[in-house]
């Protein structure tokens, strides 16, 4: 998930110049702010939001709440970070569950924003939390939209409510809630048709659906790649239907995500989830503070830790940490890591969570193919224990044997050994970073050096 990468890089470059200064003149601040302005605009942040944002940052930067431990440059970074977080909403963004089930969630949005896919993801998310969701196919306009939801339902064993023939979406929605009550579903997720926010008739239909089912959540599904129009769309939906939150989709591309910054600021509706991939699991709760950290290149370390905690065995993790510190990282550990990483989710996504600077920079350029993991596993498992501990003994003849044993080629074996070498180097540096004092001392800003 290369979320916000460019914005992060740009801001970092600008702020790096500030960081090195001991004292800031007003000209310095102004220059930095101008660059931040361009970076934000190129990231599709709404121009009105940019204006307000910069005004706030400037006011605080000039008004200086002096902190002894920070240089003025660092302080500006801190202000930008905090204001970014504020902009995206600082409080928790949990779903509102009904005190008496079923909880009714209506998804709405423009055509092609990803409502149907998101509906399935959300149902899957609820199911994993032990709920019993019912998906409702209320898009009677787009050809085969109902079919799409049914197929998704079949794929992931989710119940889908649909009606044959062309029915009124309002009736479908109302009947689905009745069905949910009688069949014991506790969550109803209504997938509505895509509509333009200026299409009065269709917006009227959405209001009627809302009226009929009295939803606990009305979520706007918004494509993260949307430009300046994002704000207008969100505002229009909010004014006419009353939104309770937003789901941003397609954040796994390289969209700079300015929409995320703007929408919350203008409508006041919290962003509750983000879609980060095509698979059904690829829906994450939205954490504004972590995203702000990512934008500034501080890395989303919290998310990594959470993911790791979910997948890693505690004692293994401690053992791994010890190895990082002592720089004894062998192919066996590499294999164990590969297996655990597979449990944590997609690699692209994980890598994108690391800070974009320092020892992690080269990570960003790696391209991953999930199937490669399988091959890597096979190759390592075709090695003898001695080879795994001490790869330097692997000569041409051993490589041929390993390749034959794992059903790969010598080139594949070579590539794995090279990758292992890179991983080893990276981990050595990681060891250096985590044992050095400045990492602990700076807390939030490990990238400031």
């Amino acid at each position, binding site marked *: 998930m290369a979320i916000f990468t460019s914005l992060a890089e740009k801001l970092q470059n600008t702020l790096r110049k500030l960081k090195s200064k001991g004292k800031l003149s007003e000209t310095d601040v102004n220059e930095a702010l101008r660059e931040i302005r361009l970076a934000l*605009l*190129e990231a599709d942040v709404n*121009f009105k939001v940019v204006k307000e944002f910069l005004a706030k940052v400037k006011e605080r930067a000039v008004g200086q709440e002096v902190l002894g431990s920070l240089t003025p440059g660092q302080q500006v970074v801190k202000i930008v970070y905090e204001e970014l977080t504020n902009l995206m909403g600082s409080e928790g963004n949990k779903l509102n569950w009904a005190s008496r089930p079923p909880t009714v969630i209506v998804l709405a949005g423009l055509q*092609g924003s990803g409502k149907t896919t998101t509906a399935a993801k959300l149902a899957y998310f609820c199911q994993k939390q032990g709920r019993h969701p019912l998906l409702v196919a209320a898009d009677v306009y787009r050809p085969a939209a109902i*079919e799409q939801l049914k*197929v998704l339902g079949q794929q992931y064993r989710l119940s889908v409510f649909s009606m044959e023939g062309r029915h009124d979406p309002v009736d479908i929605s109302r009947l689905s809630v009745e069905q949910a009550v009688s069949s014991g579903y506790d969550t109803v997720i209504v997938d509505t048709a895509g509509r333009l926010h200026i299409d009065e008739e269709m917006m009227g239909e959405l209001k009627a659906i809302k009226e009929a089912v009295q939803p606990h959540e009305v979520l706007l599904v918004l494509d993260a790649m949307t*430009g300046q129009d994002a704000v207008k769309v969100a505002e229009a939906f909010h004014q006419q239907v009353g939104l309770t939150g937003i789901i941003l989709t397609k954040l796994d591309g*390289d969209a700079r995500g300015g*929409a995320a910054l703007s929408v919350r600021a203008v409508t006041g509706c919290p962003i509750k989830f983000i879609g980060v991939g*095509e698979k059904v699991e690829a829906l994450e709760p939205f954490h504004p503070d972590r995203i702000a950290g990512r934008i500034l290149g501080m890395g989303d370390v919290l998310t990594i830790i959470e993911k790791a905690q979910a997948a890693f065995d505690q004692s293994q993790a401690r053992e791994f940490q010890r190895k990082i510190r002592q720089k004894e990282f062998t192919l066996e550990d590499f294999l164990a890591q590969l297996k655990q990483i597979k449990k944590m989710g997609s690699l692209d996504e994980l890598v994108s969570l690391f800070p974009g600077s320092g020892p992690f920079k080269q990570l960003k350029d790696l391209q991953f193919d999930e199937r490669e993991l399988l091959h890597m596993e096979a190759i390592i498992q075709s090695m003898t224990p001695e080879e795994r501990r001490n790869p330097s003994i692997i000569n041409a003849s051993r490589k041929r044997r390993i390749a034959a044993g794992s059903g790969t080629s010598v080139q594949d074996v070579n590539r794995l050994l090279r990758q292992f070498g890179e991983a080893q180097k990276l981990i050595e540096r990681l060891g250096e970073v985590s044992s050095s004092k400045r990492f602990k001392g700076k807390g939030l800003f490990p990238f400031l050096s």
Partner: protein
Amino acid sequence: MQFLQKLKAGLSKTRENLAGRIEKLFTRTRGVEEDFFEQLEEILLGADVGVTTTLRLVDGLREKVKKERNVDVPFLFSALREEVVKILGEDFQPLNMAPSPPTVILVVGVNGSGKTTTTGKLAYRFSRQGQRVILAAADTFRAAAADQLAIWAKKAGATLIQHQPGADPGAVTFDALKAAFSRKADVVLVDTAGRLHTKGNLMEELKKIRRVIERELPGAPHEVLLVLDATIGQNALVQARLFKEAVGVTGIALTKLDGTAKGGVVLAIAQELNIPVKLVGVGEGPEDLEDFQPQEFAQALFDRN
């Protein structure tokens, strides 16, 4: 003039926003001062024109103000319009057709940009011109994408070639071409799965589809159409660049121009990438697909009436 009318209808919101605001600015402002340029910059940025193109346009006007003596607001207005027309290119660029049939058109784009709908509208248009059309459902990934295309095929009276969900899109394309040869079809439209331009393996899949076409019919695909959502912001540029690198995009279909999206991104794409916009989607009906006329587009954007 049908194009102009439809576009105007579709763009009426656009005009209210971009042209309307520019007009307001031009009529409200008497003297030409720095403040004026800043506001102009904001209007263009707000229309998704993008930082680079906006700066180029506004700086161009600044130069003019420096050079000429008696610069007034109406003068700048027409200068800006000229500049926009220059960026968009003077002439309308039609779809590339094969000298002898079949013409193969490969339709690509990110998820949700409107590929299947655009492919369907194109099939409808070619059928109405009396062409025999084959639709290849090469989106084997998205649930029910082939069903969606099947409905369009029926509407257009085109032949649909499809495989099981999850099948190799290259194989679907291959079969579609074979069918086109044996049935002497005039046009083959290949609807591919939406993919984010950043996913290396999916872009490779797209290249493979292109290779299959090249191998089976030298000289094809005659047109590689990138479908872009007009509401997309600056990311459209990156999309266009990467799809162009991967499969040699030869034209752009700009969809969803009937919303409030201001289409400013068209300027940025024309200016920075030199890929012509060929088609415009301005509604949901089968006929709501128009040729892109740069002159008329600029006019519709700036026309005072």
